[in-house]
């Protein structure tokens, strides 16, 4: 097995197009355990952390640009980012442990392809886009389109994510992510729920996005919950509709981590709670509360 650490995107793409059995990695917090367990055996391991663009956080007037291999610890410690995208920052901060946080990244969390990845529902509700590099240049894809199934990506073998573009949080908006784990940390989501809302000036919900993790082969949006919220306040009736829609959209499995019935029920609970937190944050951010 060969380890290479290219210093530019071009160098990395050319390596990938010439080494069919190459695998890229960022923090390797998933790759190393997979290697140890004998689940993969690439001939070439390509370390993306030495490429500058991939480890950076940049803000401009319209968006944040976060390098795909940026340690999540950098993200959660970035005060401006974490105040603007509280839910996404919290979701990124849930990956692994403090030690893992110095290695784990949004790009790695997404491209590992786990349905339970904590940062993914939070990226989806914030409409995050992935900038993907390949032999023919770059293309942009919604994060929601990157993973097609457990461990399955829509990326070609010679492509990798360079960075994420995150449009600035609009006024009167807030996001949230919650997960259910039996422990308090060092665990994998049995159910995850992300929400983002934008309020109208009268305080009613103008826009809502709800996405669930760990309850289907990929992260799923909950359009019926979103529809139930728009134009309403988060009262008992709309929240009950959110919970019902979330439970309904689930397509979970029975496994050692939880049952289908449990995941469906708790998906509803967490979706409802995430919406409430997102609304509260939107209100607080604009002095409505």
């Amino acid at each position: 097995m060969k380890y290479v650490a290219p210093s530019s995107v071009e160098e990395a793409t050319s390596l990938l197009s010439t080494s069919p059995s190459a695998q890229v990695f960022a923090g390797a917090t998933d790759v190393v355990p997979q290697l140890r367990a004998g689940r993969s055996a690439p001939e070439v391991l390509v370390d993306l952390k030495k490429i500058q663009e991939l480890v950076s956080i940049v803000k401009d007037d319209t968006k944040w640009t976060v390098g795909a291999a940026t340690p999540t610890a950098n993200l959660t410690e970035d005060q401006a980012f974490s105040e603007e995208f509280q839910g996404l920052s919290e979701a990124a901060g849930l990956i692994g442990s403090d030690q893992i946080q110095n290695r784990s990244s949004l790009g790695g969390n997404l491209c590992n392809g786990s349905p339970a990845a904590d940062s993914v529902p939070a990226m989806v509700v914030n409409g995050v886009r992935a900038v993907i590099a390949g032999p023919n240049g770059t293309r942009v894809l919604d994060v929601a389109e990157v993973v097609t199934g457990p461990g399955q990506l829509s990326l070609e073998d010679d492509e990798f994510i360079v960075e994420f573009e995150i449009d600035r949080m609009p006024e009167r908006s807030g996001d949230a992510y919650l997960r259910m784990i039996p422990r308090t940390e060092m665990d994998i989501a049995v159910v995850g729920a992300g929400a983002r809302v934008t309020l109208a000036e009268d305080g009613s919900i103008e826009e809502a996005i709800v996405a669930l993790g760990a309850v289907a082969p990929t992260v799923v949006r909950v359009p019926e919950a979103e529809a139930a919220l728009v134009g309403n306040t988060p009262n008992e009736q709309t929240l009950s509709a959110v919970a019902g829609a979330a439970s309904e959209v689930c397509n979970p499995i029975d496994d050692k981590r939880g049952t289908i019935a449990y995941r469906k029920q708790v998906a509803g609970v967490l979706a409802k709670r995430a919406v409430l937190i997102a609304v509260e944050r939107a209100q607080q951010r604009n002095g409505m509360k």
Partner: protein
Amino acid sequence: MAITEENPGYKWVGTRPIRPDGLEKVTGKAQFGADLMLPGMLFGKVVRSPHAHARIVSIDTTAAEAMVGVKAVITGSDFPDLAANGAHASDIDVASNAIAREKVLYEGHVVAAVAATTRDQAEAAAKAVEVTYEVLPHVLTVDEAMADGAPLLHEGMITKGVDPAPENPSNVASKILHERGDLDQGFGEAHVVVEREFTTKPVHQGYIEPHAAVADANTDGRAHIWCSSQGHFQMRAYSATVLGVSPGNLKVTAAEIGGGFGGKTVIYLEPLAVRLSQRAGRPVKLVMDRDEVFRATGPTSGTRIRVKMGVSEDGKITAAEVWMAYEAGAFSGSPVGAAGMTAIACYDIPNFVVEGYDVVCNKPRVAAYRAPGAPMAAFAVESVLDELARDIGMDPIDIRLANAAVEGTQASYGPKFPRIGFVETLEAIKDHPNYTADLGPNQGRGVSAGFWFNAGMMSSATVHINENGSATVVTGSPDIGGSRQSMALMAAEELGIPYESIKAVVADTETVGFNDVTGGSRVTLATGAAVVDACRIIVEDLRARAAKTWDVEVDQVEWVEGQAQHVEGTQPPLSLNDLAAKSGRTGGPISANASLNSRGVGAGFSTQLCDVEVDPETGVTRVVRYLTAQDAGRAISPDYVEGQMQGGVVQGIGWALNEEYIHNPDGVMENPSFLDYRIPVASDLPMIDCAIVEVPNPAHPYGVRGVGEVGIVPPMAAVGNAIRDAIDVRMTDLPMSPVRILEALNEQSD
């Protein structure tokens, strides 16, 4: 801390000095089982059964042997056939568990092992060993194993303890029975009777350090083993049995140990490493991966337990009926015997029947785990007692006080209790502010109690006085819970020199007299008593040397605070320093041995108070407050006593809420990692508050009882009773995981 007897003015016993092993552990210098490297050392890998139950048709090692770097491949046929040699049944089981001969009895059962120059070569060679199996039907639980027509693990197993003996073999290895009084009469006198049925899953000891062994065999038949264990004399004995050699041919050195909790009292890798080293002519290291630790070591039993109890209007228990079946895993020897003896031992009950079954099934052979057998039985009994207290409207501490065993009570398992401290632990809980702390929404409070015998057994110690008057205390008891500190504190007290002047060490099997395993909470009691005996021999010797120096009778010399004093004060005192420096002129080196078989066991009791908060929408339970009161007899080292008390509780909380072996229908373990086998992490737990109760054990020089085990007996019921209090649901199946709690809440609201 509740002190029930005045501290007799100890200077060192009962203090909290810096732990002696801390520096080496935090700087990474401590040598654990896997750390040893020897010149020319090979790496081994074990080949394990993928099937829960199968006949081994053939093992072809030719491909593996031909691989680059491979120096040895062994199978069951490389070991003596103990069954054919007419060995004792328990020895045959030890050997058959170490490496299978005709049948594999659980997924993970060893069938072969290889040694090669590198780890990668060893792993590749292990994969190249071709084993042909005839897969047999399997049984995974006591229910399956006890069912009519169940497939048999051992065709010749006739249930012991049944009269007349059954004609047909079964998976039930033995039956135990304890009876007193008249059950019908007892239940007839009851005002309320409650009966419930409980199940628990196998749980692992969860030590952080995987099993590891290095062996270096010589051509003369002798071998040296380095391993992480709770008792290197036991490792020597078991390894000698499996290898068919004299124990004297094996030297075993105890490595520093990263947790054992009972699970490192048995052998797995040691005889394999020796045989591989003999075949290869080089030292061999074997280290388990975490998934091997789960699949092939530990755990403790899964169980099914029914409890029926009755109480009078004033809360006196009139009768108790307990039926229990414990999984033994692949070979007989579940802790159902201890479970039967401990189940109702906290209480003075006039009429009872306790019946238990030791049942084999196709899972790894169970190993001891902290108060083996007692926690599951206590979960059932203490849950039912909680229901009874609720039904008659009695405080949960008061109902236990009304029935508590005291000095003179005829224990349910036979003997009369000497002075014990159960009542004092109950009172310590009642007197603590936690007992009346306010509870928030969705919070509940539970009480539970537990008993454990504690053990005595055999120990040896040697004490050397160094030339500067410092001392070395040598024992053969691996330190899994702070024993080096406790030994040094007792020696400091006896010799009258500072704790810092004493180094306590654990010596190999050729350097110190025999010691039984570090288990049964016995080391501070028994090995501690041997240390005290050796120190007292030394003090006698020192007095004699001072008398000789002063030319007086020995009874004119007293030993006070580390120095010899003349009773009439006519001679200037001689310090240990002075005497040590002049030892050459007074009889030579100052040193003493002591060996004993401790008979002065002091039973341990613990009462615990747990507050939980249950999220009614997700079923997640968080422990918000926890208090444990335990009778230590005497806390030689209060820091370590609290560590043991807290450790038992933490493992019990894990057992209560999340830990379980999950097997698929083929009998393959699905969660052999710490990700999916969920022991608690630090953030899952509140501070575990401790109330050390000290009711001294009259049979020990300092009153020690032993503290390592009883702390894990009450927690499951304490948590379950708190959940019952919070959400009105009685959980009867462990673990009380979010999925199960939400199911129970859904049923309740239907």
